């Protein structure tokens, strides 16, 4: 009855459904209970499933207190097996040794250390803790060089991750 081919395409469409469902589940939970310091515009979320923009407030008692940043997530068709593309957008880009002035973030879970058990929630938490642990506002040493030569997509960058605490 079934050729292997049709079974394969059936399995693939199931996979797509499963992935879409997971993203929807994540968004529902995120709107209901965002991580501390994250503000989500519930109205804009439903518009497109592959793009999400949320606001991050600099935590109290840190050098970013009082600042607000826009963080953009872009989800490819392979999400959650493939990491989302995460960048800061807009005019306010946090001045941080791992954040380039074009909004690209050097954070290993966004590329090499990504795992499908991670989520929008855990990425937000990591980014907030990366900002909160920073003691001095400065750009990465190679900022001007990187911004000139990099691809638009930070996932195409071959990052060398720092072992530093920041």
């Amino acid at each position, binding site marked *: 009855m079934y050729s*292997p*081919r049709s*079974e*394969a*395409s*059936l*399995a*693939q469409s*199931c*996979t797509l459904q*499963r*992935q879409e*469902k*997971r993203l929807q*589940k*994540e968004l529902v939970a995120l709107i209901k209970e965002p991580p501390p310091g994250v503000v989500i515009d519930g109205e804009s979320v439903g518009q497109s499933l592959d793009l999400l923009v949320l606001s991050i407030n600099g935590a109290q008692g840190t050098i970013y207190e009082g600042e607000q940043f826009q963080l953009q997530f872009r989800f490819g068709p*392979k999400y*959650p*097996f*493939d990491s989302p593309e995460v960048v800061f957008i807009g005019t306010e880009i946090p001045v941080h040794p791992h954040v380039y002035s074009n909004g690209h973030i*050097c954070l290993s879970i966004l590329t*090499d250390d990504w*795992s*499908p*058990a*991670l989520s929008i929630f855990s990425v937000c938490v990591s980014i907030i803790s990366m900002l909160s642990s920073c003691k001095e506002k400065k750009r*990465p*040493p*190679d900022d001007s*060089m*990187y911004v000139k*030569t*990099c*691809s638009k997509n930070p*996932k*195409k*960058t*071959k*990052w*060398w*991750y*720092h*072992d*530093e605490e920041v």
Partner: protein
Amino acid sequence: MAVDEESDTSPRNSTGGENTENKRNEGRGEEERAFECNICLDTAKDAVISMCGHLFCWPCLHQWLETRPNRQSCPVCKAAISRDKVIPLYGRGGSKEDPREKLPPRPQGQRTEPENTGAFSNFGFDGGFQMSFGIGAFPFGLFASTFNFGDPVIRGHGAHGTNPANLEDERFLSQLFLWVAILFIFWLLVA
């Protein structure tokens, strides 16, 4: 019953009613979440459990293993994980179907997969053919890890590289090496 009672309450109390309803849903969610797949966040289907105790749907875990064939690790705790080291969970009333007839085939408990799996021809499924070779009598899997060039394991201080190397290219390259190695072995056997 309880829901009916709540809908009978006056509009003034309706917000309170919704809150208790929400709480109840959350409570029920906690219990169900214990059996959710760590990847799709849904109740695990064709469930398998890793040696480190983490639960997944087999299709979900399989897809993750195929995504990074050279660096197979548990999505939750990063422990080593592999196709042969997961245990299928058969609940009551679960599917009695032969798991091998499914795509992708779920590994069986405590025994290696028979060689004939390749006959099902996983064409069309992402990377399926690679898996069929890996479980044969021939230890092709060895080559996959030996020719593991594309795996960035170097960590350290220093400036960020700006070399726009593409992961897809790297994977292609390591697969190319794998095939060259296989052809070489066959050539040796024939010659």
